[in-house]
């Protein structure tokens, strides 16, 4: 069994705005990652997008890094 931790890094440095469709994409990636034993890391998320994640309650689902 491969026990190395696999990570999917989503770089949001060029993401200025996020809609519900965008949130659904993030959730789909997370769901698929869990099935394959991967961890999702979100990097460089601007404050507006972070606030959308907070207002909808999804912020604690992701490992959000600077």
């Amino acid at each position: 069994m491969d026990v190395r931790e696999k990570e999917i890094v989503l770089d949001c440095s060029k993401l200025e705005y996020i809609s519900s469709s965008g949130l659904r994409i993030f959730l789909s990636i997370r769901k698929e990652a869990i099935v394959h034993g991967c961890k999702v890391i979100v990097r460089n998320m601007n404050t507006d997008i972070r606030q959308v994640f907070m207002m909808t309650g999804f912020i604690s689902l992701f490992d959000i890094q600077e």
Partner: protein
Amino acid sequence: MTALDLHQQMILEEYRDSLPVLEQLKAKVLETLHETLDSSGLFVSAIEARVKKEKSLTGKLALKGAKYTRLADVTDLVGARVITFYTDDVDRIASIAEKLFDIDWDNSVDKRKLHQLDSFGYNSLHYICRMPGYDFRFELQLRTTLQHAWAAINHDNGYKSDIEIPHEYLRRMNRLAGMLEMADDEFSRIRIELTDYRRRVQTLVKNGKLDDVLLDGDTFRSYLQAGPLNTLNRRIAAINQAEIQETPLDNYLQVLKSLNCNTLGDVDRLIKCYEENAYLLARHQLGNTDLDIISSSIGLQNVCIVCILSKGGGMIGLERLFDTLNGQNAQNATLASMTYEQARTLPFMKC
């Protein structure tokens, strides 16, 4: 090279010819065990199987060759092993095996029952089984992970029989076996007591005796099963006709404890006390957006935010909340500041 007589060589030749069938039997046994244990909901540490190697069979024939008139007399050509976490699961799986396979009772051994009052050692249940449709029998070993660890280490001692083993080594290994047997029993007892505890908690939650239940991971999950946040979440979802995505709330346990919730009664009162303002905060935040998907954690998240702000926790309190929920992060301060600004005009902030 071990010298075999003509008869033993014929058995060895029969073994070589039978290898494809033995491999097939091994695969079938593994498949049957996996399928049955999966569907029975029994979680085990490992299920493994092997076909006896030629070298091992040669050694066996040289040692006990006269005992075997034909290859099928060797009962462990295929060996399967189920390693369980708990001792009582050994008996459960034994009972399943009795239904799955024909057990050759004359050759099966429950080594756990062979122990003398003053001896410890290799504990394992060995069944000699026959899979319908196959001439060859196979050996099924059932043991716990601790029994397995002990047996594997003991097997690796470099000695071929008990007679050769130095007395001091044997004494110390037996001492360990006794200790592991006690540990196995204790693990089983803990599991039984935990199951009882969860059942008691579920009954107390069901009967509404929430003040009698201390807040911990288990009790919190039992409480959430009753859906105490469903109404609030549905009201928040209705703001934008949003879809509610189910998400775990485990990370709120620490938050609730920091808000002085010691029992489920405290949690219930906290939700009831702040749910209206939690809804107002959500309406204020989401009302002018088109976000039509929310997490099922939104209700509890807003209850915690409103509780902190109502008690004068301010931005520092919110930052601590986000640090607990999201992990420490420099942007949590910005998030706390933005949330504080959004909530500043709401009625509960003016009290």
